[in-house]
């Protein structure tokens, strides 16, 4: 950011003042709902006192000064809770903003570290101000409000293909790896505690195991925060991230198991068996709950074509309910969320409008970003809040053991896994997986949940957990980026997906399925193919509205690319050459085989010669009154109704745009008028309008009338549009140059005569094109009521 020094200074000053204000308000009267788990009894009384005093103060005020009407009064309690919440959120967002103003810092230190430091600062300031630090990382708040957005964001945008391809590896790491970590750390800690001289002999085996299980789980929030900045290749990213998501089930089961039985003091083999069954139920149950809600959401989205505005809400609410329902039964809420997001996504995306899709995407990103920031800040605050019980032996042994067990676990598991993998994991990969196992706020919250009576060493545990979190986030988080560079680990490929790659991906899928069938081997591809066919035949029919379910993936991809190109084109102003995509001037005629004799071919050339182009441009320019009119203001209504009023100039400008659009769009030419229901076609419909007529066969010669649903019977606009584009398709109608000449003449004339003249031409050649145009213009399908202000070219 190129802010001047002064501006930067001012901004920092503002933030500091803000911080100060925040600190005082937050410290002075902490919110009542945050203190659900009330461990600071003293603070509570003080708060009550405050409220009591304030109340009585008000009351006395009231009775005292009956005559004087309170013109201006301060009533903080009224808005206290929402105010504080907003303040925290605002603080978090400003912090996030601030870090990017100091680019050098954010390059060296990952954001998560900086946020924890900010949290420490805020907590410290609150303490200095003499107030009680609020217990902000309360488990309820964390698990019900802060965690779900992050997980939903991860689940909804989970790249399914790499996830499924590596699912075996991920599950091994998540289940076996976590179990190994938990028992190794717990067991060895217990052994250490038994050593004389550590004063820890009162720590029994089961609490140790419980502690081990809390601390051994890799945390998705921390992993996301750090891995996002290092841009590592997709495989490693999905391995570590997938592991962090799926180990939730293991953690939940182990936690409950040990918590239940630490009171009893022993665990029988029967309990172990029950534990295993519990694990299966927790994980599969969570997934099932998520899938059910996902299907419900998909089904609901089928009917939302008339109420586009609330579409995103369904996505969020169904997902959140999936999470809550799973938590209700003590199933794995995280897995429910992931399953819900992943299941509903393909169907919902086929049903909802483009804008809703954007809304969902941005809301999820926004919420997850704020949540993440808040979590790290709260971690800092909670560290300051304490209470702490520092024990050198315990803490240091914990940190060392965690590292050691992680490395041994990863290496050992990879050895076994590599026997079954095609793409083996190299030593470098193993190192990154081991090093990337970061712990985070989930561990802290689970520790916080522990009952103080059952676990007298709770504070020691919390201290150790916090130290471990700090160690992983600061040390491992900061050093992983230089290490990745040092080891030259493969980074994420930034290449754009090309259509050739997409074609060949599909091609390979079918080819490999075929080869497997020939071998008689029911492998990967066979089952994937079967699932796809089942999906297409039954499920898509139920869950996707209209005719869209028939659209194969390749076509959807192609339309998306078209659409993107069109948007890029318009946003770049139309006349500017696109820097990306197609820098060359290869056009259709370069690859079309020359079937026609040269004479006809010349006339059939879809492009103007340079000279002609210049003439047209000059004439258009001289007649334009508005120099620049953003195409966004056009919609299909003005397209038809305007020209009879003052739209002539608009029309000219549009035409100029069309010419240039055509030239740029020569890459994606031959899109015929697809059925209006196709969502990608609808989203791309206006973009591909110009080309919609290119290849429609001149099936019926001379359809006499142009059917227009809307206002005017024959708008020169639409007709001229046809003329314009029919030129491209005028292989058999060599009207190219003649058309232009006519238009040039008609420049300053009145609308009606010119339109009349054009109408005839439009009829004869454009007759065939009309159904296409009219279909698109009059009834573009479900997106009809969609966005009234949708521009002509989106």
């Amino acid at each position, binding site marked *: 950011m190129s802010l001047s020094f002064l501006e930067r200074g001012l901004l920092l000053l503002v933030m500091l003042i803000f911080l100060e204000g925040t600190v005082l308000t937050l410290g002075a009267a902490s919110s009542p709902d945050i203190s659900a788990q009330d461990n600071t009894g003293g603070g509570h009384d003080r708060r009550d006192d405050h409220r009591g005093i304030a109340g009585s103060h008000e009351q006395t005020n009231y009775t005292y000064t009956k005559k004087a009407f309170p013109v201006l009064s301060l009533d903080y309690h009224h808005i206290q809770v929402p105010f504080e919440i907003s303040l925290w959120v605002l603080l978090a967002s400003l912090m996030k903003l601030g870090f990017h103003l100091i680019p050098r810092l954010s390059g060296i230190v990952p954001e998560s570290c900086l946020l924890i430091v900010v949290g420490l600062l805020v907590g410290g300031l609150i303490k200095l101000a003499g107030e009680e630090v609020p217990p902000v990382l309360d488990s309820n708040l964390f698990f019900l409000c802060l965690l779900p957005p992050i997980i939903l964001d991860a689940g909804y945008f989970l790249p399914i293909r790499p996830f499924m391809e590596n699912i075996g590896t991920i599950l091994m790491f998540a289940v076996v790896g976590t179990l190994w970590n938990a028992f190794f750390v717990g067991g060895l800690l217990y052994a250490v505690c038994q050593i004389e001289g550590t004063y820890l002999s009162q720590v029994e085996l089961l609490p140790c195991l419980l502690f081990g299980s809390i601390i051994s789980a890799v945390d998705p929030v921390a992993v996301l925060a750090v891995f996002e900045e290092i841009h590592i290749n997709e495989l490693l990213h999905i391995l570590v991230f997938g592991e962090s998501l799926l180990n939730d089930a293991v953690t939940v089961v182990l936690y409950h198991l040990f918590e239940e039985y630490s009171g009893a003091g022993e665990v029988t083999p029967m309990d172990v068996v029950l534990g295993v069954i519990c694990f299966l139920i927790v994980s599969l149950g969570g997934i099932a709950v998520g899938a059910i809600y996902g299907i419900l959401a998909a089904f609901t989205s089928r009917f939302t074509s008339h109420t586009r505005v609330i579409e995103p809400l369904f996505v969020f609410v169904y997902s959140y309910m999936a999470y809550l329902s799973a938590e209700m039964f003590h199933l794995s809420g995280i897995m429910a969320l992931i399953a819900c997001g992943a299941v509903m996504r393909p169907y919902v995306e086929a049903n909802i409008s483009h804008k809703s899709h954007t809304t969902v995407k941005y809301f999820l990103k926004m919420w997850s970003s704020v949540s993440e920031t808040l979590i790290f800040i709260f971690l800092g605050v909670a560290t300051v809040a304490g209470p702490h019980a520092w024990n050198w032996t315990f803490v240091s042994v914990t940190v060392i053991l965690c590292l050691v067990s992680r490395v041994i676990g990863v290496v050992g598991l990879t050895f076994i896994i590599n026997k079954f993998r095609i793409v083996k994991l190299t030593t470098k990969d193993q190192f990154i997986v081991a090093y990337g196992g970061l712990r985070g706020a989930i561990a802290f919250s689970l520790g916080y949940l522990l009952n103080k009576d059952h676990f007298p060493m709770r504070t020691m545990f919390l201290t150790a957990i916090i130290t471990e979190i700090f160690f992983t986030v600061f040390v491992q988080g900061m050093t992983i980026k230089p290490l990745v560079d040092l080891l030259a680990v493969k980074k994420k490929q930034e290449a754009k997906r090309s259509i050739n790659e997409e074609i060949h991906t599909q091609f390979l899928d079918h080819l490999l399925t075929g080869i497997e069938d020939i071998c*008689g081997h029911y492998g990967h591809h066979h089952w994937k193919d079967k699932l796809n066919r089942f999906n297409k035949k039954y499920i898509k029919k139920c869950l996707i509205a209209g005719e869209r379910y028939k659209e194969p993936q390749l076509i959807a991809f192609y339309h998306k690319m078209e659409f993107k190109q069109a948007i890029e084109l318009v946003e770049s102003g139309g006349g500017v050459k696109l820097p990306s995509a197609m820098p060359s001037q290869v056009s259709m005629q370069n690859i079309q085989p020359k079937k026609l004799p040269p004479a006809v071919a010349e006339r059939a050339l879809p492009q103007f010669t340079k000279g002609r182009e210049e003439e047209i441009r000059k004439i258009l320019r001289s007649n334009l009154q508005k120099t620049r009119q953003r195409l966004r203001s056009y919609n299909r209504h003005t397209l038809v109704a305007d020209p009879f009023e003052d739209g002539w100039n608009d029309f000219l400008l549009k035409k100029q745009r069309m010419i240039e659009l055509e030239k740029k769009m020569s890459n994606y030419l031959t899109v015929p008028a697809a059925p209006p229901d196709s969502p990608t076609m609808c989203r791309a419909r206006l973009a591909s309008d110009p080309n919609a007529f290119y290849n429609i066969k001149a099936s019926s010669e001379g359809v006499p009338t142009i059917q227009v649903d809307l206002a005017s019977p024959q708008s020169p606009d639409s007709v001229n549009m046809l003329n314009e584009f029919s030129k491209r398709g005028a292989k058999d109608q060599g009207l190219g140059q003649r058309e232009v000449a006519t238009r040039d003449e008609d420049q300053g004339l009145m609308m009606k005569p010119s339109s009349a003249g054009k109408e005839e031409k439009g009829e004869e050649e454009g007759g065939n094109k009309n159904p296409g145009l009219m279909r698109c213009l009059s009834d573009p399908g479900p997106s009809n009521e969609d966005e009234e202000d949708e521009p002509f070219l989106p």
Partner: protein
Amino acid sequence: MGASQSARTEHEFQDLADRTGFSLEQIGNLNKRFRQLSKNEETLSRQDLASISALDNNPLRAQIINAFFDKRNLRQNEAGTVQVIGFEEFLMVMSHFRPAAMHITEEEREKLRREKLRFVFNMHDTDSDGTITLEEYRRAVEELLSKAGTIGQETAKAIADAAMLEVASTTRGKMEPDEFYEGITFENFLQILKTFDIETRMHVRFLNMDTATMRCGK
């Protein structure tokens, strides 16, 4: 089977293993499958492959079967097709789908890529002239979308055109309006699929094959 016969088969298999790179066990399994498909004859014909019911749902059915009888895939440097293939030829075609070994050099990896991409190229280039013309590519995409109904057919052409344009612009760059791009050569093909990690994707797990599952294929 007499002892001498099995010894001879062992020897053959060893020879084949050396040449195609399969392990003895895999060759044994594939041989069983070959016998099953060819109804215990020495050679396999198109008809035998076409009778596999599982292939019916595959849009690329015809091309895959053709690939087995295409001389170019049989390491013979000539064009054309054969009518029947023996076990050795069967193995040769299958060897294109072997996974890459764990530790291979860059050279070997490049060689493997070329081999696999050559197979795919041959599948597209139906007239064996060394280039994929627009017509051939169109047909390939049409086949791919053949199960998709009418929508597929209409846009297949558009997609093929767009893909061809992409190849032309990445490999040739600027072209004058009257220049003509004849078709995708193998070098161009390699270039556009540079970021496509075919050496890891194009494989079939021959490891876990056993005769039990094989019977289900028919």
